[in-house]
């Protein structure tokens, strides 16, 4: 039988199942619930994750002592210091150093943020020009920035603006002089800072609310196919019998 007909038949079966709602009694459902294995240590981790990400530092420490649970994500002092170091590096014009630090923190930040990466490279170019390293600047522009410019129109425009710096003897008076301003460094520094925060805030959100939302969603989904005991009140977690 050709695959095509097998698929057709499967779709028909699924459709048939979808039209009639399966009824699951309280007893049957409770048996299913009892069969679920939830590990105490996983629940402890979930609670610890909540305490830490919501900033209940003292409670987290007490919980560690009372339950023996280690913190899952150490998102405190270490990462704040790192982030500040990156920001400072950019503000001082040490862009290469900053890039290295960002990658040490989280290589995905630059990978998933082409615009940020371009701006950092652009800042590097600006610093080279500022320091009078004309040949190096041109080489850098051609090898690193031009390919990015080809992929993206706005990158290209910015690249052209930056390279234009080289055309002027008196950079302080030229139309693209603002690029040499300290404010340009600050702008880039701010962009990096925000990107790091965003990448960290993903881990900064506690997992518990997401799980609760998943429960609401999972029940809504199952409602379409079955009548079963639901939990309608999350804070009391009581099962309510299916309406038959």
């Amino acid at each position, binding site marked *: 039988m050709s695959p095509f007909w097998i698929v057709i038949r499967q779709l028909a079966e699924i459709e048939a199942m979808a039209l009639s709602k399966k009824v699951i009694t309280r007893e049957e459902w409770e048996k299913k619930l009892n069969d679920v294995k939830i590990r105490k240590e996983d*629940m402890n981790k979930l609670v610890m994750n909540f305490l830490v990400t919501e900033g209940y530092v003292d409670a987290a420490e007490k919980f560690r002592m009372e339950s023996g649970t280690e913190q899952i994500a150490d998102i405190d002092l270490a990462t704040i210091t790192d982030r500040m170091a990156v920001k400072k590096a950019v503000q001082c014009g040490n862009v290469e150093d900053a890039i290295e630090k960002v990658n040490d923190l989280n290589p995905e930040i630059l990978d998933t943020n082409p615009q940020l990466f371009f701006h950092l490279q652009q800042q590097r170019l600006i610093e080279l020009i500022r320091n009078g390293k004309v040949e190096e600047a041109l080489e850098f522009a051609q090898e690193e920035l031009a390919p990015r410019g080809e992929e993206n129109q706005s990158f290209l425009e910015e690249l052209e603006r930056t390279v234009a710096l080289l055309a002027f003897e008196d950079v302080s008076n030229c139309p693209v002089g603002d690029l040499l301003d300290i404010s340009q460094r600050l702008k880039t520094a701010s962009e990096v800072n925000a990107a790091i925060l965003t990448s960290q805030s993903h881990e900064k959100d506690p997992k518990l609310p997401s799980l609760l939302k998943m429960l609401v969603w999972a029940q809504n989904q199952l409602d379409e196919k079955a009548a079963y005991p639901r939990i309608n009140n999350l804070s009391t977690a009581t099962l309510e019998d299916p309406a038959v």
Partner: protein
Amino acid sequence: MPQQITKRRGFGSTYETPQSTLPKLKSKAAELKSKNNNTLHGFKNSRTAQKEYEAQERMKQQMTIEKISLPPNISYGLVRSYLLHYGYEDTLHSFDLAGKSTVPPVFIAQENGVDEQDITYALNQRKTLRQLIRSGDIDAAFCKLRNWYPWIVQDDKSSTCFLLHCQKFIELVRVGALEEAVKYGRTELAKFFGLTGFADLVQDCVALLAYEKPQESSVGYLLEDSQREVVADTVNAMILSTNPNMKDLQGCLHSYLERLLRQLTACCLERRTMNGDQGEAFQLHRVLNSGNKAKC
């Protein structure tokens, strides 16, 4: 001219092909071959397309879930009742203190007449017992229980006593006091051998004696913290059940949080079964160790 006998797939018969019809058949064969290739190619393309589609659907699903709104302070409330349920007294006090000093202070409405009395019941005693059991001091735990809740440990054949005796045995093995362990096993564990429900654990406990490095054996799990946790949780539940105001015995076993997680798992599994077991099964363990990207 040599006769050609051609057997072709799908036709299922042999026949002789006179030379005149050979070119026609050749072109027909070429036609079929290219059709097959296209179908195969089309199939491969549709596989990648399907994967992309699935990834897109997962993203859409994730976004729909994120948009769901929850009652205010629900997580806070669930964590609090978790701490109360298992008797993490110090943590609870620290947590409450912090909650009062946030701006605005966290306020949880008393729901459905669930009296806080019910779960603050014997909080300090439960915390003490948990501490003792977690540190392996089973003798002290027995002592305190005899003092505070003698009827729990009166029946030496009860599951609470059973678990405590097993744990004591395990602790003796842990420190290498094997002779003492054997003696203890003979006096306290032997009686459980014949009883259903207890036999497995007793067997595993005794098996610890067989190994030079029991922690590396198949029964090594007994030496882990998790086993102490099981005992501590059981004792905790038993004490909660002695509360005269406790209407719901089920409530002694599972915290609200646990019930919610069970419901989540059961719903996902049921949905998966109804979908012909397609897709990944939900596992809390995986959600915790991955990022926030949970799959259902």
